């Protein structure tokens, strides 16, 4: 466990590990096999206080430090990637409010979200905007006492069951990134929000993602902060979000390595455990080293969370390295399991499928490299 954690935080992580192994692990294979939405765990997560663990106590959270939150997300992802994905999408939504909204909106939404009574979604990605969110086409134009929100979003986690969606749209189409504003949209309360069927995905099959289209009225008090501040909010949220993505990839990789180590001890070939062969030992050693490096980079970024400073480069390091290393670790773990690893009787193929998206979403590996290079050269 990380030395960054105080004794209460260590107790929190211990309790999450315990909860995860008893509640999340037993359901993980079925969530994947049947594409069951991981929100089935929402009541249990809410009772534990996990749905609000990214928030300060003032908004119903528990005020975990960045490193503690990193360890918590890692533990949940090690148990069930889909659940971690659903949970961290909720965090992106609440984090948007925490970092961008005025006090009244925070007080209206966050305590219920922290208690797990309201599920959040974060809607930034658009079909035509690719990796540059400033290219978004969605617009919010002044309309009476509020805005007319028009446009569409894609791959929006949780949208199908979300009680509130943080939607990013342009209030000034000519102003580029500075023309982006963020709004809270409550689909059950207003007309004109259409949420499609969840996408059929390769992995994280219980972390459902949906297409959404809007043509709806949003009251002005649902705007996060001032007009034009949405892009800055989104970038800050994604700095945090990338740590959580890194933590998830590290968690799944940890589960894969643990499985590989036990298998290497138990599986016998020619009268001796396969772990006694040097070729396999070196694979395990490489995996353990890469896992430790991924965690170290994740914690380095996590220490800067909440300090007010931007830390895009650290969070890009963490996200890039963890998502790429986790893929290699899980791939080796499957290789160690041989043909059995390829079957659905073992979780290895699920880990690998779940991990593939981590090299793509919340900024692909290529985008992370661009962020790092720009920071080096600027």
């Amino acid at each position, binding site marked *: 466990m990380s030395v960054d954690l105080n004794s*209460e935080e260590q*107790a*929190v992580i211990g309790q999450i590990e315990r909860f995860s192994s008893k509640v999340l692990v037993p359901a993980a294979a079925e969530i994947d096999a049947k594409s069951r939405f991981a929100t089935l765990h929402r009541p249990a997560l809410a*009772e534990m*206080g996990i749905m609000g663990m990214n928030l300060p106590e003032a908004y119903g959270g528990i005020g975990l430090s960045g490193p503690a939150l990193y360890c918590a997300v890692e533990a949940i992802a090690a148990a069930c990637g889909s659940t971690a994905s659903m949970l961290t999408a909720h965090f992106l939504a609440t984090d948007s409010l925490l970092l961008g909204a005025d006090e009244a909106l925070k007080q209206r939404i966050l305590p219920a979200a922290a208690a797990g009574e309201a599920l959040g979604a974060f809607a930034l990605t658009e079909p035509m905007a690719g990796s540059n969110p400033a290219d978004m086409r969605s617009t919010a134009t002044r309309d009476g006492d509020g805005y007319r929100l028009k446009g569409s979003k894609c791959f929006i986690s949780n949208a199908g069951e979300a009680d509130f969606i943080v939607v990013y749209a342009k209030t000034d189409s000519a102003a580029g990134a500075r023309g982006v504003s963020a709004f809270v949209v409550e689909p059950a309360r207003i007309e004109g929000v259409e949420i499609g069927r969840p996408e059929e995905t390769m992995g994280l099959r219980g972390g459902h993602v949906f297409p959404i289209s809007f043509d709806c009225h949003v009251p002005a008090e649902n705007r996060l902060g001032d007009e034009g501040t949405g892009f800055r909010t989104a970038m800050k949220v994604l700095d945090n979000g990338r740590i959580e993505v890194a933590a998830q990839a590290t968690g799944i990789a940890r589960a894969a390595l643990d499985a590989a180590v036990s298998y290497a001890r138990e599986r016998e070939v020619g009268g001796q455990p396969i772990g006694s062969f040097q070729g396999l030992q070196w694979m395990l050693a490489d995996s353990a080293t890469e896992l430790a490096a991924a965690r170290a980079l994740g914690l380095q970024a996590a220490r800067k969370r909440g300090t007010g400073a931007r830390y895009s480069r650290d969070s890009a390091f963490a996200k890039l390295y963890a998502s790429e290393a986790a893929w290699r670790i899980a791939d080796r773990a499957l290789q160690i399991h041989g043909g059995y690893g390829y079957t659905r009787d073992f979780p290895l193929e699920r880990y690998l499928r779940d991990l593939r998206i981590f090299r793509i979403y919340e900024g692909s590996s290529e985008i992370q490299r661009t962020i790092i290079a720009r920071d080096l050269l600027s």
Partner: protein
Amino acid sequence: MKILVPVKRVIDYNVKVRVKADGTGVDLANVKMSMNPFDEIAVEEAIRLREAGKAEEIIVVSVGPQQAQETLRTGLAMGADRGILVKTDATTEPLAVAKILKKVVEEEQPGLVILGKQAIDDDCNQTGQMLAALLGWSQGTFASKVDLGEGTVDVTREVDGGLQTVKLKLPAIVTTDLRLNEPRYASLPNIMKAKKKPIDEKSPEDYGVDVAPRLEVLKTVEPPARQAGVKVADVAELVAKLKNEAGVL
């Protein structure tokens, strides 16, 4: 009414126990430690009694090293109101613990003391009974049901061959068995709040108890490895083996 719940810090039940190379005991270095599972059941029962309006205050007490404070915090996170740590690095034996608990009981005057029936490290199954004897209180051990009445408590006990219900006059000692309840998970907010709940720190000397061990450990050994089984070709061979070799038929 106050309920006192003594809790012990033990090696976690998920940990594979390893004997020290010199045979003097079990290796505890860098091993995960937790609250004794039977004590968790005791804490849970106390909380349920408070939730049912039958108790006002729950005090958890632990006799052990500084780290036993974490065990008390676990109890506080589950819902106990305050803790008492009786700090000692000595190997604690049931009689010494019972003597300390007797003093704590005399100070705190609880109406009920609920303990785990035994700790999963040394499996002594003695502390509750010794405490009852020292105090001259009634005891209901191996409880699978606790029904608190006016001035009495009905305790259903798991005994060989069935269940036995005894009615005890309060104050009384109850020790918990596995089926009494399923302890709750402390929620994360409660874990964080537990740090604000008070823990009194005491020492055995404060209670005038000598905790020096009365027992000497001669050696500690791993249980013998299980022998591999035998495959039989058919039922006839199985029956023959059961008859002639195992002698069970």
